């Protein structure tokens, strides 16, 4: 199976401080489900920022969709970003837009015509159980509803990779399970999912998921088996 993401000796340093991420080596494969775990401050959000092209690494090589994302010209980045869905830890919904408009935003950015986006956005609203809140603004939605709008916005463009940063951090356990089920459903459609969480109980909810654990900016695992996620083919052996 072709790789979708590959990190080689990647390090990230903010300013002149110590490296926030160091010596990251891993490969992600299409259609797989990954959990990224680690304590607060371990570097999960920084790693995700590298993944969704919000940050360039200080060193190393990142290959994304088969291309070098580190030396890629800035003008090409928007096209790659459109292939990645992101659920931000703080949702980052546009406060003055309705739920409908927030979800439609990636399609509008991609130049989809208005008449072509109404049906998919309405379907997405139904999919996340917010069909009756289409015109509601984020401030009038509960934390869980905002979370679902953020997820719907991340997946409306059928991204090849979905990156979610602590997506269950602001919702109750029942809602957390529902959200994971949404991710799983998307995963079955072929999207590669990367979910950062510090809640290790979530890991058991997705049986087929693989785990990457960060400790002080480095990938770590006592057994070492999770350091590099195994290929799905190897996993079944």
């Amino acid at each position, binding site marked *: 199976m072709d790789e979708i993401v590959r990190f080689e000796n990647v390090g990230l340093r903010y300013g002149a401080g110590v490296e926030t991420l160091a010596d990251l080596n891993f490969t992600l494969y299409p259609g797989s489900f990954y959990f990224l775990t680690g304590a607060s401050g371990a570097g999960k959000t920084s790693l995700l920022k590298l993944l969704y092209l919000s940050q360039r690494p200080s060193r190393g090589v990142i290959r994304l969709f088969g291309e070098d994302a580190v030396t890629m010209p800035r003008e090409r980045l928007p096209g790659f970003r459109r292939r990645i869905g992101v659920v931000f830890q703080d949702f980052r919904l546009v406060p003055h*837009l309705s739920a409908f408009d927030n979800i439609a*935003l990636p399609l509008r950015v991609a130049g989809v015509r208005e008449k072509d986006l109404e049906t998919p956005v309405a379907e997405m609203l139904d999919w996340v159980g917010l069909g009756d809140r289409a015109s509601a603004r984020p401030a009038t939605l509960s934390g869980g509803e905002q979370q679902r709008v953020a997820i719907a916005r991340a997946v409306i463009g059928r991204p090849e990779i979905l990156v979610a940063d602590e997506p269950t951090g602001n919702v109750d356990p029942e809602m957390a399970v529902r959200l994971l089920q949404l991710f799983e459903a998307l995963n079955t459609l072929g999207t590669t999912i990367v979910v950062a969480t510090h809640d290790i109980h979530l890991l058991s909810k997705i049986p087929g998921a693989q785990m990457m654990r960060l400790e002080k900016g480095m990938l770590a695992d006592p057994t070492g088996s999770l350091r590099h996620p195994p290929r799905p083919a190897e996993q079944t052996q």
Partner: protein
Amino acid sequence: MFKFFVIPSHDRRLIPEGRLSGPMPWVIAIMIFLTVLATAAGLAMTHAIGDVSDELSSRATVQIIEANPQTRSSQAEAAAKRLRAMPLIKEVRVLPPEEIQALIEPWLGTQDLEDDIPLPALIDVKMVRAATDAEYQSLRSALQSVAPGARIEPSSGYIAPVFSLVRSFQWIAFGLVALLALATGAAVIISARSALNTHSETIAVVHLLGGTDQQISRLFQRRIALDALLGGLLGLIGGAVIIWLISGQLSALGSGLVQSVGLDWWSWLIIAVIPILGMFLAMVTAKLTVIGALKKIL
């Protein structure tokens, strides 16, 4: 061009706009108002200099300075005859003594001056074109034999210092226009940066969803272009009213150079285009500012 201003409602919602609610349209209105006045002043002075200069550059005055009235009169007639025979000369008119007295009356009063002061005879000469220094020299030589006391003075010489002053004002007016354009650009930069700061979160989200610099800058360009156009039209209306009132007052003065200070149709056309130019200036400045700021983020 007009398609550019048809902002989809969802774009309007993405970067909320407040027509006339922010300071930008008013700042632009003041800038355009001042630009209209400065441009009108510059153009009016150009117009006045052009009109008067065209008129005076082909005119000259011949003075016959002779104490004896009979000799003076005969020399004036002879000089006029000689001048009429020259191909460079289009029109010659010997000014009657009453007209000469009327010219000096404001300075020397209404009493009969003929006996007290030997006034020179004056010949108003209109040439087919502006004469060169060499041609003036040959005119002087030609008159020397028939009127030894004749002096020929180009009319433009009298008013040269006034022209020089008016030209200075003209340059000051156009300099002001340039400074106002710079100030307008600076105001747009401040406004664009302020808008970028206000909407930084939204911009970051659009950016991470794959929005290009062009897409994001277009949102601000349209917003600032509309603000600039609206402010520009207000400034134009204000400026046009002031120009109209001043034009009326100048016409009422009804004398020489001042009366020439008017605006023709192409001057009005240039003034009418100022808000459009202001809008394009604002758009380009906004685009460069926004794209410059976006390039600082990945």
